[in-house]
C-alpha cells in the first residue's frame, strides 16, 4: 500500500466518522438542533441529502430550507438523482420558472402552497418562500442549508414550521448584512442582523456542533493555508493527495510571457500572485481588471488539461471551469467587457461574479482580483475575512490572485481598530489577520508583471 492510499483512506474514514456522528445526533431526541460547520467543499450538500434520506427512512417528513432558488434547484436535482423513488416537493413562488433539468424529473412536484405538495416526503424551498407559508402544518425536522447566510430575523419568520433543525453551513463565508446603519441591537443575544445559527446557539446551550474534517474541493496545496487563515479553530485537511491533482498546458507558450509565467506558477504550485506595479487606482482600474480577463483568456488559448481523482486520465478545461472573482458589481461588468474584447469567443463562458454570488460554487481554476488591490484605505468591507475566503476557496486546482503591489503596506497602515462592544464575542478570523496570512502565502508565489 502506498502512502497515497493511506491518506485517502484516512480522509474518507474521518469524513465518514463525522457524518455518522451527525446522523447519530439527529436520531437522538434530546437535541432540538444540530449544527454542522463545514469548510469549503467539505460535502455539505451530500450531508444534507444523506440526512434528508435518513430522516425520511425514520418516518419523518423533513423540510429543506435553502437561501436561493439556484441552491434549491441544485438540491432537488441531486436528491432526485440519488433517491429517484422519493417523492419530492419544490415549494416556489408563482413567478418561478423551473430550469429544463428540473421539469424533467418525474418524482418532483412543483407547488405554490403546501397543499399542492401533500404527497411529498421531502419539501424543499427558499427561506423567503417558507416565510410566506401561512399553513399551520408543523414539520418534525427542518434542514437549513447555508444557514450562516440566513439572517436571524428570517429564521424567526420560518421557525414555527418545524420542531427541530439541522443547521448546515460554512461559518467562514460572508456574513449576512443590513443596509440600515443602526447600533441599536449590538450586544443583544437576539440581534436581528446576526446570522441565525449564532442567535440560535446563543439561546440554546448544549447544542451539538459538528465539524466536517475534510475538504474534497480544495487541493492539498490550498487546504492548509485556507484552514490557517480563515478557520483558525477548525482544522481541516484536503481529501486528495498532492499528486492526485495536476494541471498541464496542452500547447507551448508563444508571446505574452508575462501571463504565461503566472499561469505556469499556478499550474505547478496551485497558487500565483500576479503583481502589478504599485499605484493607487479606483476599483474600476482598467489594467487590473483587464489582466484578470487576459489571464483567463490566455489559459483557454493555451489549453489546459486537468488531472484529478474524477478524471485520472486528464480532461481539457473549458470556459465553464474557470471563474473570475471580484469584490464589486461594477468590477464584474468591466471584467465581462474585457473578456469580450479578448477576441476569444470561448472567453465569454468564464463565470465572472462578486464574492457574494460565487458563494457555494466550485471551479477548477479561479482568478481573483484582490479586494484591497490599489486601494488607499482598508475598509471593513474590503478587509472582511469572509470575502477573501469565498474568493480563494472556490478552486479545485489553482487560484491566481491579481493585485497591485503594496497591499502589505496598506494593511500595516490600517490595523483593525473596530470598536469593541460589550457582550459581543470577538469574531474569528479577524479580517486583518486573515489577509496577512493569505499575503504571506501568496508572497511565495509572486510573479511581478
Amino acid at each position: 500500500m502506498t502512502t497515497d492510499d493511506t491518506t485517502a483512506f484516512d480522509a474518507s474514514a474521518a469524513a465518514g466518522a463525522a457524518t455518522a456522528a451527525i446522523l447519530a445526533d439527529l436520531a437522538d431526541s434530546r437535541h432540538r438542533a444540530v449544527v454542522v460547520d463545514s469548510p469549503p467543499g467539505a460535502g455539505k450538500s451530500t450531508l444534507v441529502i444523506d440526512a434528508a434520506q435518513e430522516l425520511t427512512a425514520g418516518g419523518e417528513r423533513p423540510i429543506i430550507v435553502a437561501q436561493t432558488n439556484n441552491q434549491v434547484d441544485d438540491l432537488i436535482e441531486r436528491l432526485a438523482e440519488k433517491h429517484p423513488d422519493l417523492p419530492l416537493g419544490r415549494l416556489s413562488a408563482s413567478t418561478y420558472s423551473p430550469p429544463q433539468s428540473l421539469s424533467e424529473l418525474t418524482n418532483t412536484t412543483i407547488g405554490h402552497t403546501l397543499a399542492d405538495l401533500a404527497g411529498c416526503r421531502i419539501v424543499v424551498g427558499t427561506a423567503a418562500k417558507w416565510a410566506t407559508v401561512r399553513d399551520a402544518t408543523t414539520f418534525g425536522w427542518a434542514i437549513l442549508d447555508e444557514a450562516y447566510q440566513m439572517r436571524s430575523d428570517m429564521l424567526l419568520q420560518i421557525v414555527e414550521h418545524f420542531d427541530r433543525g439541522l443547521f448546515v453551513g460554512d461559518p467562514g463565508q460572508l456574513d449576512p448584512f443590513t443596509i440600515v446603519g443602526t447600533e441599536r441591537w449590538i450586544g443583544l443575544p437576539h440581534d436581528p442582523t446576526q446570522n441565525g445559527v449564532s442567535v440560535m446557539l446563543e439561546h440554546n446551550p448544549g447544542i451539538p456542533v459538528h465539524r466536517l474534517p475534510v475538504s474534497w474541493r480544495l487541493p492539498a496545496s490550498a487546504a492548509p493555508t485556507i484552514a490557517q487563515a480563515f478557520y483558525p479553530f477548525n482544522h481541516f485537511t484536503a481529501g486528495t493527495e498532492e499528486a492526485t491533482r495536476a494541471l498541464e498546458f496542452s500547447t507551448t507558450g508563444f508571446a505574452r510571457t508575462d501571463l504565461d509565467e503566472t499561469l505556469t506558477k499556478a499550474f505547478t504550485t496551485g497558487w500565483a500572485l500576479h503583481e502589478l506595479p504599485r499605484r493607487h487606482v479606483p476599483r474600476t482600474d482598467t489594467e487590473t481588471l483587464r489582466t484578470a480577463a487576459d489571464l483567463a483568456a490566455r489559459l483557454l488559448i493555451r489549453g489546459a488539461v486537468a488531472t484529478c481523482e474524477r478524471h485520472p486520465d486528464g480532461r481539457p478545461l473549458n470556459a465553464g471551469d474557470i471563474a473570475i472573482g471580484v469584490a464589486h458589481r461594477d468590477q464584474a461588468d468591466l471584467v465581462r467587457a474585457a473578456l469580450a474584447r479578448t477576441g476569444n469567443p470561448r472567453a465569454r463562458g468564464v463565470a465572472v461574479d462578486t464574492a457574494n454570488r460565487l458563494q457555494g460554487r466550485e471551479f477548477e481554476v479561479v482568478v481573483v482580483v484582490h479586494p484591497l488591490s490599489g486601494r488607499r484605505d482598508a475598509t471593513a468591507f474590503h478587509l472582511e475575512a469572509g470575502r477573501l475566503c469565498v474568493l480563494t476557496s472556490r478552486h479545485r486546482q489553482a487560484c491566481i490572485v491579481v493585485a497591485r503591489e503594496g497591499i502589505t503596506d496598506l494593511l500595516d497602515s490600517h490595523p483593525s481598530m473596530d470598536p469593541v462592544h460589550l457582550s459581543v464575542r470577538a469574531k474569528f478570523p479577524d479580517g486583518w489577520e486573515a489577509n496577512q496570512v493569505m499575503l504571506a502565502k501568496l508572497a511565495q508565489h509572486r510573479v511581478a508583471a
Partner: protein
Amino acid sequence: MSILSALAHVQAMESMRAVPLTEFRHRRLSGRPLVIVPLAMAGEAGAPLAAMVGSARRNGTLLVVPQPRNRDQRFAFAAGLGRIVVDYIDSFRHNRRGEDERSLYTDAPQVLVPNPGGVKALADLGRMCRFRSTSGPHAVPDVVPEFGMWLTFLVDRAEQAGTSLLLPVTGMLAEHWATGQSTLEDQNLASLMAWIAPPAGLSVEQAMAEAENPDVCPPAGPTTSPEFDNRDLAPAIRRFDTARALGDPRALATAESDLRELIAGQIQPTWRMVWEAISLLRSVPEAPQTARRFERDCAAFTRYSDDRDAGGLPQRKRDTAIGAARRLNRLERALADFESETAFDDRFVRADRRSAGEAFAGTVVETESGRTVTTVKNRRVPRPRVTVRTEDPVRLAADTTLISPTMPTSHKAVIVSVLPDGDATLVMVEVTGGMGRSVVPKPGTVPELGQSIDYLPDPGWRPEPRFPVSDHTPWTHSAGPDGPGIESAVPEDAAAEEWGNDD
C-alpha cells in the same frame, strides 16, 4: 460615494463653494419647528449641561444645570425643558381629520437639533427621564416621564429613513449641498455653513478658519470645547458649589447668573446658525413626495399620541427578539422606499443612480405598441413592448419591474432584455401597467418612438413579513426556563441611568 457625488465634492473643492447635490429638499420643513440645542457635560455620559429651546429665532429659552452631577438639578432642568417640549407637542394634538378610529392629526411636530450628536443627546435624555417615578422616594415632576417617552418616540422615529419628526440640521444641509470636506467634517455645523453661506465679507477659507476656532465658533454640541471646560466652565461650577455649600444666597445668585452667561455665550452662536440654516433650507424647493411621507409621520404621531392618551407604558430599554426583527424590516423597507422616492422626484439623484447603473434614461428607438397577450384567466390585455437606447451603464437584470417619472404615475414596465449596441445599450421593456382597462391602451400611456424616457426600479409592494406573536418567542430566539439568563448576560448601560451624588 457614487461617481457623480464624488465629482460634486471635487467641484466644490476646486471652486471653493458648496455645490447642490439635489434638485429638491427631500425633508419636510415644518412652518413652526422646535429647535433644541443640547449641551452635555464632558466626562459624564448623558449628563445634560444646558439646552436652548424655542420655536422661533427670537424667543429661545436657555435652560442650565448649574451642577450637572446633582440629580435634583438635573431633573429640574428636565422638567423645565420637558414643559416647553410637551407644550409644543400638545399644540399639534388638536385638529384631526377623518372618521373616529382612523382619523389623523393634520399636522405633526418637528424637532430640529444641530447635528447627529444632538439626536444622541436627546436619546440619552429620553432614557434618563422615561422610567422615573412621579411618586414615592426620588419623585420627579409629572412632566418628566412624559417628556422622556415623547423624546424616545421622536428618536426612534428619526432612525427611519424619510421621516421628519426629528432631524439634525447638518444632515439636511449635507443632503442638499456637497462641500469640499469629508463626511465627518460635514457634521460640524459651523464649517458646513461656512461652505454654503459664509458670513458677509468673509471668503469660504476665512469662514472655515473661524469655524475651526472654538473661541469664535463654539462647537455646536452636545460636547463643549475642552478648553472652555477647563478655562471657564469648571471654575464657574466650582464657584457655584462653594456658594451653595456656604449657603450664601447672594453669592449663589451671582454664581448662577455667571454660569448662565458663560453658557449662553457658548450656545447662542449655534442657536443663530441653526436658524440661518433653516432659512437657507426653506429657500430650496420641497420634493413632491415629501407630502406623502409626511402623511406617514402624521399617522405615526397620531398612533403614539393615542397611546399616550391611553396611558401606555414607557418604551422598553431593549427590543425583544420579535420587536427587533420587526423594526429591522420596517427600517429596511423605509430606506429602500426613501431612496427610490428621492430618485423618482429628483433628476440629480436619478443621475447619480444612473451613473451606478441602477437606473437609465434614453430614447425610444422601437415600439410594438399594438402587442397584446392572453392571461391565464383568458383575458386579452395590452402588453406593448418598447426598446430604449441608452448610453447609461445599465446594470439591471431582466424581469426587473420599473417605474418612470417621465410617464403618467401608474406606469409600470418590466425589463425583457438588455443588449449591448456598440457603446450604448438597448433595453427592451414590456409595459405592464397604467394603460387603462381596455385592450387598447389609453393615449399617452405607452412611450412613443423618439420619446425620451427615464426608468428606475420599483421597490414595489412587498408582503408584510409575519413574525410569531409577541408573547410567543420561539426556542431559537429565547432561552428556555433552564437556559442562560439573558438579563445577566447584558450589562446594564449604567452611565445613562446613573445619577451621581445627591449633592
